[in-house]
């Protein structure tokens, strides 16, 4: 056993690929069989990731030598690199298609989530700008939170909270969209674009819209694609700057 552990530690990054692959495989099965695709596999997998982290120490599961490779695969550099790569496929002609109302809903969506998140964070006793901004960014998506937190130097427990907020949002969007679609008039392409811009979580938006009307999925995805980019641009810059003025 000890020998096997030693051997795996030697190949830690590759072992991390295998581990994450297994987690995702398992999540896809759970998503399909237990939730009938109602909860996106990505949300399940990230939740499992957080559960694994709980089993470890202050570096999460990477505190256990066997899983040290997770720190390489899930490190800041890899994360930022893959996040940037998701912008591939979004083009200027698409931005034009989203148009004025898509842009408005994107900006409002990011600001609204950030404001609500940071105000509640303040009310719950987080009074330093770094924590407030990171938690506010987490209310955007589970990626805007950690990107912002790392950029401004927030602590790992705050970053973990911001990921959890984003995951809860993604699951809620998925589950609630089909239930309240009628009440918010979500039955046409334009509202779907507004919806994507307001909610932002791509996994939640696409899964939620798929349950309402698959024809609406591309419209929601169109604006949602830009949400994380906009959040990563605004939260650690303008919004952080304004927050520090307010709190320092």
């Amino acid at each position: 056993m000890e020998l096997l552990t030693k051997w795996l530690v030697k190949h830690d990054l590759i072992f991390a690929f295998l581990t994450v692959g297994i987690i995702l495989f398992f999540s896809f099965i759970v998503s399909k069989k237990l939730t009938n695709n109602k909860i996106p596999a990505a949300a399940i997998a990230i939740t499992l990731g957080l559960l694994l982290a709980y089993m470890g120490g202050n570096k999460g599961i990477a505190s256990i030598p066997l899983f040290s490779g997770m720190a390489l695969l899930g490190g800041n550099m890899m994360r930022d690199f893959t996040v940037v790569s998701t912008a591939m496929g979004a083009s200027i002609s698409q931005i034009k298609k989203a148009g004025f109302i898509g842009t408005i809903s994107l900006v409002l969506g990011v600001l609204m989530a950030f404001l609500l998140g940071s105000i509640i964070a303040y009310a719950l006793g987080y009074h330093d700008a770094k924590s407030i901004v990171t938690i506010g960014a987490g209310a955007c998506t589970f990626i805007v939170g950690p990107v912002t937190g790392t950029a401004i130097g927030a602590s790992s427990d705050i970053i973990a909270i911001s990921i959890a907020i984003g995951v809860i949002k993604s699951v809620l969007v998925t589950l609630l969209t089909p239930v309240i679609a009628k009440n918010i008039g979500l039955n046409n392409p334009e509202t779907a674009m507004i919806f994507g811009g307001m909610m932002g979580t791509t996994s939640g938006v696409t899964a939620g819209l798929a349950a309402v009307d698959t024809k609406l999925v591309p419209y929601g995805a169109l604006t949602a694609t830009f949400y994380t980019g906009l959040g990563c641009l605004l939260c650690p810059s303008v919004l952080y700057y304004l927050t520090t003025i307010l709190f320092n």
Partner: protein
Amino acid sequence: MKIYGVAFLAACYLIGQILGDALGLLFSFNGNIGGVGFGMLLLILLGDEINKRGWLDNESESGILFWSGLYIPVVVAMSSIQNVKAALTGGWTAVIIGIVATLCCFALIPVIAKLSKRLKN
């Protein structure tokens, strides 16, 4: 060559990070301001230009797509290395914020939809 796509992506990432770090220094923050966002913007703007001129073929593009396919797995690995035990001392923070933020954003959708109709008329 796939590596051309990966190299192009790396260039966008690095320039974005430089911009973010430079802004951080400029405003004397200890950190990187919007580096990832700038990187994405660059990839969209330069990518569009490069596509028009046909400089990146499908093979090169698949080098970028490979990394965007690793996005969720990397995020899963990232969640697994956070200090979740300490985060749990925050108690209900995540749950409350997640629910309130989502519901309020839902509520705003019909408002914006109405606004959009009014703008058109």
